[in-house]
């Protein structure tokens, strides 16, 4: 039910505050994210994603809360659910999307490391989410002037160039956007590492 929230025209802020404003509720989201049941983890991730997607304030609250740490922990688990990986990276993508404000550099780099780390998983939906996350991260270049170097150093570009885009056509668009951002931003890096 709650994942329908973004689709209503009714003032969503009232609900968002109720759903995210209480500290003890944050504890229950953390408990659900750590659940042994995949369905619970998946749907908590989905719900958190939709609730923060149209509020930069909530996004910032989320990033500075213990939920962010719990989300990053999910990716360190021995995961055998592609859905959970996909939904987690999708959440990271949402966290990096709005460039009105830039999250703390440390958190951005954690998201970069996580999404670059999953570029070896040859599964369309995971690759796509990883690429959109990296693209969103690259869009914070104004506030984070070293972000292009960080992306190059993460090994993401090398992995991007090795992917067979005939097989993963849907990934071509975010890939080109990342490379486009890098090319438009810092030619000297591209010169050395891409060409």
């Amino acid at each position, binding site marked *: *039910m*709650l994942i329908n929230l973004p*689709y*209503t025209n009714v003032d969503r802020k009232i*609900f968002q505050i109720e759903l995210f404003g209480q500290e003890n509720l944050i504890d229950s989201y953390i408990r659900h994210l750590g659940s042994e049941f995949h369905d*619970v983890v998946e*749907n908590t991730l989905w719900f958190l994603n939709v609730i923060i997607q149209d509020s930069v304030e909530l996004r910032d609250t989320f990033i500075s809360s213990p939920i962010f740490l719990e989300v990053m922990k999910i990716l360190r688990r021995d995961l055998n659910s592609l859905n959970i990986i996909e939904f987690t990276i999708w959440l990271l993508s949402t966290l990096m999307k709005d460039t009105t404000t830039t999250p703390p550099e440390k958190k951005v780099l954690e998201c970069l490391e996580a999404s670059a780390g999953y570029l070896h998983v040859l599964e369309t939906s995971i690759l796509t989410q990883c690429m959109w996350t990296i693209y969103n991260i690259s869009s914070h270049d104004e506030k984070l002037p070293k972000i292009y170097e960080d992306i190059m150093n993460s090994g993401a570009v090398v992995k991007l160039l090795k992917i067979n885009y005939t097989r993963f056509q849907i990934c071509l668009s975010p890939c080109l956007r990342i490379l486009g951002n890098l090319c438009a931003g810092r030619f000297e890096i591209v010169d050395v590492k891409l060409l």
Partner: protein
Amino acid sequence: MELINDMLISNNESYIKLAVYLLRTYFVKHEVNVQEKIDTLFNLFNQFNIIKTLCDVLLTSSDNSLIVYIYL
């Protein structure tokens, strides 16, 4: 909706489950005016403080299917 809210705060696990499943059926998206339906439901949620009640269920419940239904 008032009845559903009463069921949600009843402290009776079966009633809570039934209320959540009933609410969930309202959201099944196979009708023409989905937007209108979702707006109506969220207006009712607002009117009857349903989100607050659902939050309380999320806080206390350890029933995985119930948690999934509240989110999904």
